[in-house]
């Protein structure tokens, strides 16, 4: 499933321009500096794993990249957009899967995936393909989401993300709540997305499985990215 519009506002030609580029980024939640000077580079096509203890700032880092949280200090560019000035523009090309699933409980799986897909301009075939890739076609597709198990809801949220065909995937604990089959499914979907041109950043506690999946691992702690953050191949 190819991402929408191979997007390259930095002027084309730079095949090695990082998808995400953060320099000493400070981001606040209320009074608390959730990110206290994080620097990170992510190249196109990478599957980056963010690991670290709770409260380290992994979720905040993902939300900053999604353009949800403003950058208080430092520089941040995602997909060529400067997050300090143009946060809203980057959102169309980014897909975030957070702790909540962002689903409408009263609607069926097909209604949810359909809504989220269509608002991003996906066609009916793409929506159907997203659902089948996550094993949601057939009997499950007409069940209201509130009646599904946690794992099935997670898969539905992933199907919504898949249907949107984002260029940058930001996944916060995506394996949580999935059974073994679901996790295999998820890994397959991620790999498939990267093959189609997306870049993926995953924050996870599932170290073994995630490390096998990822092409690179960095550690986030105390609101900063420890060694392993920058230094991508130029």
């Amino acid at each position, binding site marked *: 499933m190819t991402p929408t519009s191979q997007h390259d506002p930095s002027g084309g030609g730079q095949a090695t321009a990082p998808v995400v580029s953060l320099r000493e980024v400070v981001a606040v939640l209320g009074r608390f500096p959730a990110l206290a000077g994080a620097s990170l580079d992510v190249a196109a096509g990478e599957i980056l794993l963010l690991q670290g203890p709770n409260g380290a700032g992994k979720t905040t880092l993902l939300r900053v990249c999604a*353009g949800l949280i403003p950058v208080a200090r430092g520089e941040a560019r995602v997909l060529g957009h400067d997050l300090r000035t143009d946060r809203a523009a980057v*959102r169309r090309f*980014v*897909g975030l899967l957070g702790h*909540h699933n*962002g*689903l409408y409980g009263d609607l069926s799986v097909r209604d949810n995936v359909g*809504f989220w897909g269509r*608002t991003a301009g996906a066609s009916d075939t793409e929506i159907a393909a997203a659902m089948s890739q996550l094993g949601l076609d057939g009997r499950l597709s007409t069940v209201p989401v509130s009646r599904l198990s946690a794992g099935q809801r997670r898969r539905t949220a992933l199907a919504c993300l898949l249907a949107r065909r984002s260029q940058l995937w930001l996944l916060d604990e995506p394996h949580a709540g999935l059974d073994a089959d679901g996790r295999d499914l998820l890994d397959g979907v991620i790999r498939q997305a990267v093959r189609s041109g997306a870049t993926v950043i995953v924050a996870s506690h599932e170290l073994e499985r995630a490390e096998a999946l990822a092409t690179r691992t960095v550690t986030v702690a105390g609101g900063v990215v420890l060694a392993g953050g920058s230094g991508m191949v130029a």
Partner: protein
Amino acid sequence: MWRTARLVASKDLLIEWRSRQVTNQVLPFAGLTLVLFAFALDRDDITARVAPGLFWLATTFSLIVLVQRTFAVETSDGALDTLRVAGVDPAGIYLGKSLALAVQLLVLEVLLVIGVVVFYASNIRPAGIVLVVTAGLLATCGLAFVGTLYGGLAAGAKGRETLLPLLLLPVVAPVLIGATRAFEAAFGTRGGNGIRAGVEIADGWPWVGMLAVFAAVFGTAGVLAFGPLLEEA
């Protein structure tokens, strides 16, 4: 923008259709307020005359509940967040939710009119039907526009739910005044201590003009302002 609006509106109405919360909970609530008004007023000769006012009061209070409901749907599983990240056109979200809200309000109003006729023994003059429908539609649009706008402001985060009535009620006052006067003209009744005995239908149309202005002004304002208001930080 219109495409997004259509998607959002159908999504909202579909949710309502599946969950039936409005029909099962808000409608009875509105009907109950009509009954409680009758208890409080306790003057059979008056109720027919104040019926239009009570109708619009009941509608206004139900509006608050409906607005809270339409945004509770979004915030319960973080869908509002997802809407923000998804980069969905905020103006489209606004129009879509307003449309869905207006439809729900209209259903409510139709049933309330029946309630008013039944409980308060009002009679609608056949010649006044056009006025009633026009005024009702315009007032509903105004209420939906304003409700969605301020609802978006008050959505989500803690401590904001009680903000909604405080913000919303002053703003809907013109609609309350205008719609009630228009309905009085259509019903042929007169509330309060007016000197004139009856009301001509023609008296209602200036109010309809005001309702139209209100709806246009706040509809436009909402399309422009909803995006900035939706931003969390």
